[in-house]
């Protein structure tokens, strides 16, 4: 063991020194307004951009329609596709032509009405060919749903016309000849009744962008003092590590809080998301989560003392997982178990769960409260780690 000169017996926390340090932090922010920008306006900009840009609502999907025969049924079907706002149709006459369009990415799907389609439809067993560019599988499944819905609509119309004019119907509709009735689905999307992706994406987004700005700001401040050599100056002042850390923590928290309020206003005013839960709980959740993110950044900053490493780890350790592993975009209930467990290790998961509840469903509050307790524990834990890492020693 190396002998070390013992410090003061009690690390006294002096309010005067703390306030002086807090003043210094704010002065530094004013001098380099980039950090104020990151804390307040960057979240708003990102929410606007991501809120508009991150969308699953495909419209005008380019589709090639192969019509190998001219019959009333096929003409009606083509009209159904051309009239829909979900498709931008190109009519082609051959498979080769359609394949060429698909290969050059000018269409995303091929709908193939083969020769003899109306005859088969009359016999009750028509087959419609559908080829979808499948690399983006989620887009492909959306396109498939659109096409199925359109074909279903067309089928209904054709059946209706059959009954009145008897043009095509030989077998009439299959349902009437069968002994049992058909099963149909009546589906409702709860908590997001209109099924808009903005409602699903924006509430979680307020957490994701907060993660970025808060952990980034935290990760810079201590390492910067080390890199600029000003930490050495601080070391010879009587300021206690707790005072240094807390002044940095609170100054960033105040900026992040302003950013969080602006984010909330953007979500409500621009994207029209409802807040169906308790606003106080929402504020508490966001504030505690922001405090965790800052404490996480401060810990990295104090531990590594190099801005590059600290910033990198803050982005890698909090922003990217909050985007991908937290149940924000990808539901944790449908991923392999060990990923769900990993997700449950991230504070962002709890914050996003609570925020989605508070914005969209309003309850259950019991879950929000227990999440808040978990977030609080994370926050205290990382503040303690950051305090242990903030040493006034040059080694």
């Amino acid at each position, binding site marked *: 063991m190396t002998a070390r000169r013992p410090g003061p017996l009690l690390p006294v926390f002096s309010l005067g020194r703390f306030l002086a340090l807090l003043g210094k932090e704010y002065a530094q922010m004013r001098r380099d307004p980039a950090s104020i920008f990151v804390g307040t306006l*960057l979240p708003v900009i*990102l929410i606007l*951009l991501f809120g508009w840009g991150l969308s699953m609502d495909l419209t005008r999907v380019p589709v090639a329609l192969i019509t190998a025969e001219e019959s009333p049924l096929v003409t009606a079907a083509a009209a159904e596709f051309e009239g829909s706002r979900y498709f931008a149709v190109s009519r082609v006459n051959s498979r080769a032509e359609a394949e060429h369009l698909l290969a050059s990415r000018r269409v995303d799907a091929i709908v193939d009405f083969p020769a003899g389609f109306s005859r088969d*439809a009359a016999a009750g067993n028509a087959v419609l060919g559908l080829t979808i560019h499948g690399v983006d599988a989620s887009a492909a499944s959306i396109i498939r749903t659109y096409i199925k819905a359109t074909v279903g609509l067309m089928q209904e119309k054709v059946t209706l016309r059959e009954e009145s004019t008897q043009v095509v119907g030989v077998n009439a509709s299959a349902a009437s000849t069968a002994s049992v*009735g058909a099963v149909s689905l009546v589906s409702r999307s709860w908590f997001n009744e209109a099924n808009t992706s903005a409602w699903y994406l924006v509430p979680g987004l307020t957490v994701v962008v907060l993660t970025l700005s808060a952990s980034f700001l935290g990760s*810079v401040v201590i390492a910067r003092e080390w890199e600029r050599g000003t930490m050495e100056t601080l070391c010879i002042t009587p300021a206690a590590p707790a005072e240094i850390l807390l002044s940095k923590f609170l100054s960033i928290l105040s900026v992040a809080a302003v950013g969080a309020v602006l984010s909330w206003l953007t979500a409500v005013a621009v994207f029209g998301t409802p807040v169906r839960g308790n606003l106080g709980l929402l504020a508490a959740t966001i504030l505690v989560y922001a405090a965790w993110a800052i404490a996480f950044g401060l810990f990295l900053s104090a531990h590594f003392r190099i801005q590059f490493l600290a910033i990198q780890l803050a982005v890698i350790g909090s922003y990217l997982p909050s985007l991908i592993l937290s149940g924000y975009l990808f539901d944790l209930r449908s991923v392999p178990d060990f990923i769900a467990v990993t997700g449950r290790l991230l504070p962002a998961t709890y914050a996003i769960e609570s925020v989605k509840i508070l914005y969209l469903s309003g309850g259950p509050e019991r879950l929000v409260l227990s999440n808040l307790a978990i977030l609080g524990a994370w926050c205290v834990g990382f503040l303690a780690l950051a305090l242990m890492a903030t040493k006034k020693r040059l080694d």
Partner: protein
Amino acid sequence: MFAKIAALLHALRLSLVRLRALARKELVTLLRDPAMRRILVVPIIAQSVLFGYGATFNLEEAPYVILDASRSPASEAVIRRMESNRIFRRAADPRSHTDFIAALSDGRALIGLWFPEDFADRMARGETAEIFVATDARNTTTANVATGYVSQIIEDVNRGNGTAGVIEIRERYRFNENGITRYNIMTGLILGLAMIQVMLLAGLAVSREREEGSFDMMLMTPLSPVEIFIGKAVAPIVIGIAQSLMIFSVCRWWFEIPFAGSIWLLIFVVTLFSTSIVGLALAISAWARTLLESVVISFVLLLPSFVLSGLMTPAAAMPEWMQTVTIMNPVRYGILTIRMIYFENAGLADILPYLWPLAVIALVTIPGAAWLFRHKVT
């Protein structure tokens, strides 16, 4: 004449010697710290594996609940179909409507099926029998996917009973027959994940030296600003390429996503992408006054381009004006061409029309950064 050429060659040789020394110094400063070496390798591998499992819209044992008021062989036949694969897993057995609602709102279930009491009777009478489906649409995409699966199951049931419509849709997904969403996201990460680190690496390279004062020292060496720029650019570009290839290996060998294209063409696109990102980051860091400012500008420019690139959601779903604005987004077309090569075996001629934004960015930012190096000093 010969003397002139000889002098030129000599100058070139000297310049190359200086460049080599500088590039080496940059690589050494970057890789000297073991923590630094780790941070360039470990997170990339760990993240691409974790994200590969986590970033999926395919359902695997998604929790569902059933409220069967009909309690009939007909409803049980549907339930058996629901449980015959690994897509759904029964999460709870609600006894009342209140339980059913609670299971969905506290997130225990993603989707709930409710068979009304007259379900079997209606079916027996030959009428349309309805099943009510409620989804937890706080996660809209997953909810829609789940509804899609259920309607597929119902269609199968109808087909089995001979009550389906007259038109059967025979569908196939080209290039990704089983519709695995991981294919899309993982191949996007080949550029996306590497980009974030490379951008910070290049961005901080100049700003840090400037803050520490060693940048002025470097300007006093015989190195010309252009040479400094090239020397600064080489290390991050090489690291970017290496990281992209690491993620590619995870795609190819860990997740076994079939690779259809040419690895050389892939490396070509990765190199071009890495170069234009480094050029951009260096231009930013040469222009910014402080390290903080440089990182902030990089964030503002590059994080949106990361998210708005079709990486996770289809680029075609962006509003029209945004699709126009993001034409210059290097990530968008970088990812598009990587996917074209990866899945469709696209050739150089196929991808060239999409590469010009990358080329333009590289051609503008690299001389721009070199110019800023020279003019920022005076």
